[in-house]
């Protein structure tokens, strides 16, 4: 099957004028401005199949929003190719945007002074959505997103979480093939986040909409994405399964054991003791060295055990380690 998104050697460079200090500097700046180039996106390639839901991750300033804007046709690439749904996004704007939906967490598509319902009606006309389809979608989203409580409130009077729900509904009324979400959970409380995640999952699973999601909240990723892409400094550091990332860079797993007796020491091959608290001992072990079942087998043959629990390294600390320790860059150096 042909991919719905194909991105090839994509670059976006911004040219900024360098400000010089003082009067003399200002005058020189006028005569011979000095430029500085920011490589916001610096050679990214990937494909996306129809129906995928990928997380697009990276630290602040990594180039996520810039990529999304290019994919949505809002920015013209400096070089490289993008083909989405058979279109070059920025070239055929009107035809292209009719088939996509986008939510930029920081701003709204809705009319500030109009009640939500009026904005949605306008969108029906803008996207020329047949009345039946519009009504069906609206009913479904109203219920899933709980819009009824504020559907007659002007957008300017909505809370952030309410506005985000209204915006998600607005982005999907026309049954887009693709949905771009740039930080859709930014600034929301736990309950609101969860509701939005469930909605995104529903849209992806039930409607088959392809979704690209950027976020700084890794529970979004854990809950939603099988595949993640990690970028930093405009370069793609990782593109693959989240699970693999966890295995490879996840650090150590933990096994917490409650023994039936108080052993003064309880060594076992393949794992190290990381802490103890009365009868409770915490072991650390590596996935590639020993499987959890094997370790449990060894322990139970040597000691009397009441209870035990395997703890996976959380994805948040994994990805933080990847950013901070530049694990992926070293990994690719080693591979070359």
């Amino acid at each position, binding site marked *: 099957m042909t991919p719905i998104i194909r991105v090839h050697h994509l670059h976006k460079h*911004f040219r900024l004028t360098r400000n010089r200090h003082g009067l003399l500097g200002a005058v020189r700046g006028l005569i011979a401005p000095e430029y500085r180039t920011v490589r916001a996106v610096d050679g990214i390639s990937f494909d996306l199949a129809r129906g995928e839901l990928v997380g697009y991750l990276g630290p*602040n300033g990594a180039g996520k*929003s810039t990529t999304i*804007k290019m994919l*949505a*046709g*809002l*920015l*013209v690439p400096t070089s490289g190719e993008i083909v989405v749904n058979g279109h070059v996004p*920025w070239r055929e*704007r*009107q*035809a292209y*945007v*009719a088939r*996509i939906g*986008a939510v*930029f967490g*920081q*701003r*709204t*598509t809705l*009319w500030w*002074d*109009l009640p939500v319902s*009026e904005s949605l*009606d*306008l*969108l029906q*006309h*803008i*996207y*020329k959505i047949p009345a039946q389809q519009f009504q069906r979608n609206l009913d479904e989203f109203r219920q899933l997103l709980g819009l009824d409580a504020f559907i007659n409130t002007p957008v300017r009077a909505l809370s952030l979480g309410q506005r985000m729900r209204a915006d998600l509904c607005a982005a999907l009324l026309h049954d887009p093939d693709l949905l771009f979400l740039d930080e859709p959970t930014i600034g929301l409380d736990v309950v609101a986040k969860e509701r939005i995640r469930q909605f995104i999952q529903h849209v992806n699973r039930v409607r088959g909409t392809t979704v690209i999601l950027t976020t700084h909240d890794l529970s979004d990723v854990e809950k939603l994405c099988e595949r993640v892409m990690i970028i930093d400094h405009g370069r793609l550091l990782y593109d693959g399964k989240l699970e693999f990332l966890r295995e490879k860079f996840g650090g150590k797993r933990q096994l917490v054991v409650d023994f039936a007796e108080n052993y003064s020491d309880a060594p076992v091959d393949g794992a190290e003791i990381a802490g103890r608290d009365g009868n409770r001992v915490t072991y650390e072990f590596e996935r590639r060295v020993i499987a959890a079942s094997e370790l449990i087998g060894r322990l139970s043959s040597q000691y009397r055990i009441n209870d035990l629990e395997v703890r996976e390294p959380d994805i948040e600390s994994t990805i933080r380690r990847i950013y901070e320790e530049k694990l992926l860059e070293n990994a690719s150096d080693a591979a070359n």
Partner: protein
Amino acid sequence: MRLFFELARRSFQRQLTYRAATIAGLVTNFFFGVLRVAVLTAFYGVQAEVNGLSLQGAITFTGLTQAIIGYLSLFGWYEVMNSIYTGAVATDLLKPMGYYRFWMAQDLGRAVAQLVMRALPIMLAYAIFFPITWPKSVGQWLALVVAMALAWMISFSVRFLANLAGFWTPNALGFVRFAFILMYFLTGFLMPLRFFPDWFVRLCNLTPFPYIINTVVEIFLGVLTGPQIVVALLSQLGWVVILGVACQLILRAGVRRLVIQGG
């Protein structure tokens, strides 16, 4: 067409909700109208006519121009520029519709609301307090309606064009303000154009500005007659087309340049 109407209707409704602003605008426009009447009366002194315009005509002129300030957004309109600067333009460009028509529809709603809520009350107030001249024939009224509609389209396109400067510089405010100051003089808002020297009027007539106000005024006062009216309306129409094309071309170049601010 349906979309255009729906956008205009929402924009009209939105204007109706700005009641306090409307009343403030009404009072201000009328107050300055009275001032202008005083100045013109002093200027006329004992003369019955200046450059073919009677004092009553001049008073009508001030009433009419004060009345349509809101309709034509003569004193400034920065919405497109602001939406470029806040990045709101991004969400509008994600909608499958022409950006120029999108704003035109919304401006139409705004303009019609201003016509109803500001232009009519001001003209009525003038009619109560001052001697004014009204159009005398059905034909003149019809021509006036057409001229007003075309004047709005020209004014919209000029304002839109000026706002597009926002695509090129982060400091377009000065430029857009300058465009509005030009409008102030060259449209014939400040003074009827016929008070100015001939060469100046001829120069103005090479620009779209007089077709925003002067044409409307001259039709209203009956200065233009018969074939002159037809020529004036056709000239307006010509500017509507030229400016419409210019807006589209420059808009396209601007969108290409667009760098949306903010993360």
